[in-house]
């Protein structure tokens, strides 16, 4: 059984500090939903409010339509997976997994049966008698998942459980987590600061900053249509072009920036409408590194600009090329590894091009600081 989770205007304050501010979001039944944001943005606070370890100062948490106020974490239909997993080191793997059944007075035989089932689910059959410290990092991760699933919660809450793993294992666990979620079919609420994790696993993501929701939406929508400069720069890489609106033609905005005039599409607001811009307004136009190309006979899009090559950086599957438009404006673009960049020597002036469909104009606002 799965349940939906509704956060109704949640605020959490510590003294005069807002750890979360007026957060309202509805997470659907059976959905894989991620809260994505930098550290200290309030995402863990929200998770603790959902799990019951923290009472929101204002607002309500509803799980399956039921108000959770006054219901402790041991009585909620949620299970939490901690960042450090918090497995019990003095118990065996099986004892860990069925601890929730033990405290509910389930008999030993039934517990053993359930432990074996769950060990099968996480592909650790026959390893139930081991102690936790005898397992590898990835295996411990899976034990923590099994332990959380043992009581068949309606909602599983995950607090950056992959952050301690190395890259390869993390990528493997992403796929595995997603597969487990599909198999058990319950609502997963995932907290992370790693946008790669959020985008690969989730059905929808909520981007948070300083305690507030910046944007909630499908992964590709958040990536392609950021609502705020923060989202544009926190999710994925982006080049911010500061400038002024020259003219507005429907959803096409003409922007002057660094002595170039670009055409870009208008960014959207939270309710799906275009931002309204006026001539002369200060804006930022965002264009992603992978949407910029070197201009040649075959590649000519509706925006072009000139820049000087600064450095070429090899990253494996892609190459990053850092350019200077002038002393104030740096631009980065990336090309697949196969592209020949031997002609891009330092200080060479080149011409670049990008499509107005890939550039987004947003009102001026604060960017995500790396």
């Amino acid at each position, binding site marked *: 059984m799965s349940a939906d989770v509704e956060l109704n205007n949640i605020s959490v304050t510590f003294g005069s500090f807002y750890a979360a501010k007026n957060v309202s979001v509805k997470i659907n039944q059976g959905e894989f939903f991620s809260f994505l944001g930098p550290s200290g943005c309030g995402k863990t606070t929200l998770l603790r409010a959902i799990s019951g370890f923290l009472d929101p100062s204002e607002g309500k948490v509803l799980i399956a339509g039921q108000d959770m106020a006054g219901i402790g974490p041991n009585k909620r239909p*949620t299970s*939490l997976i*901690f960042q450090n997993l918090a497995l*019990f080191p*003095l118990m065996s793997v099986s004892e860990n997994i069925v*601890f*929730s059944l033990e*405290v509910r007075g389930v008999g030993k035989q039934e517990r053993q049966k359930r432990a074996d089932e769950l060990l099968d689910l996480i592909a650790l059959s026959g390893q139930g008698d081991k102690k936790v410290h005898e397992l590898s990092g990835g295996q411990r991760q899976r034990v923590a998942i099994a332990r959380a699933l043992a*009581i068949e919660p309606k909602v599983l809450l995950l607090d950056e459980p992959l952050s301690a793993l190395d890259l390869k294992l993390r990528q493997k666990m992403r796929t595995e987590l997603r597969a487990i979620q599909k198999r058990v079919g319950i609502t997963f609420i995932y907290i992370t600061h790693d946008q790669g994790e959020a985008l690969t696993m989730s059905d929808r993501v909520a981007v948070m900053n300083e305690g507030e929701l910046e944007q909630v939406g499908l992964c590709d929508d958040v990536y392609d249509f950021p609502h705020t400069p923060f989202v544009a720069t926190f999710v994925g890489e982006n080049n911010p072009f500061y400038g002024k609106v020259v003219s507005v033609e429907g959803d096409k905005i003409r922007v002057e920036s660094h002595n170039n005039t670009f055409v870009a599409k208008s960014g959207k607001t939270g309710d799906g409408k275009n931002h309204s811009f006026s001539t002369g307004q200060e804006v930022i136009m965002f264009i992603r590194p992978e949407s910029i190309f070197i201009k040649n006979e075959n590649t000519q899009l509706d925006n072009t600009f000139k820049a000087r090559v600064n450095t070429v950086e090899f990253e494996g599957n892609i190459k990053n090329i850092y350019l200077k438009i002038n002393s104030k404006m740096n631009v980065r673009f990336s090309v697949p590894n196969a592209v020949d960049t031997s002609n891009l020597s330092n200080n060479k002036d080149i011409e670049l091009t990008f499509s107005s469909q890939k550039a987004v104009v947003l009102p001026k606002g604060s960017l995500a600081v790396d």
Partner: protein
Amino acid sequence: MLDLSFRPNLPPLLRGGPDDVHTLVHYKHFIFGSETSEDAYNYVDIGVFLNTIITAILVTVLNLCFCYPIAFYMAKVAKPNSARLLIVALIIPFWINELLRSFALRILFAGEGVINNILISIGFIDTGINFIAMDIALYTGLTYAYILLMIFPLYNAIESLDTNQLEAAKDLGSSTFRTHWRIVIPHAKAGIASGCTMVFMLTAGALATPVVLSSPNTYWFTQLIYQWFNMNDNWSRGSAYSILLLSVSVVFVLLMMRIFKVKIGEIIR
């Protein structure tokens, strides 16, 4: 002292002479009493010895029950500032000499002492309770005397427990009692064993507190040892009795290690 306990009590001139041989006479005296006595066993000394050990065990258990919640509160519940304040409040009384602390308790518990006066004035009782004759004063004094030696090992052990484990247990539906039983106590067992052994040994070996607070009918084994050494000038018998007390303390330590399945290194840590 071990050697002395196996030698007869001789006047100084005869020591090292032909009569100064190894003998079990003092241990025999502990069990069977003096040769002039009509009883089959030395009921008085054995009684005092058993009473001391049993009371010391009771005091240790009492101490553990009392200190565990305090230590847990300090380690996991209290905010850092109030935990520090609590530690100071616990330590300050121990700046005062043990003898003085015992006398202070005597003043509290005396027939016309502070506690009785308060109880009478609020009309709870009509006549004063004889706390000292009932040995309540003694138990309180002994429990309080070594409270820090129980609290600090417990505090250290509980403090090192990852707080997330407590939350994880709670999240999985565990009640407070069960979380303590399955998570906190197993984690803190080395601290519990360490605190219990220290409190037991010091309680069984206490002298000042029993002298000041025990009822006229209660004798503490250390008082006997003191008498053999100082009043009867029988050092070898005093030694034998001391060795007996020491042996029981060592057995107690080994027993605690067995019960809590900890190694000596963990206790010392």
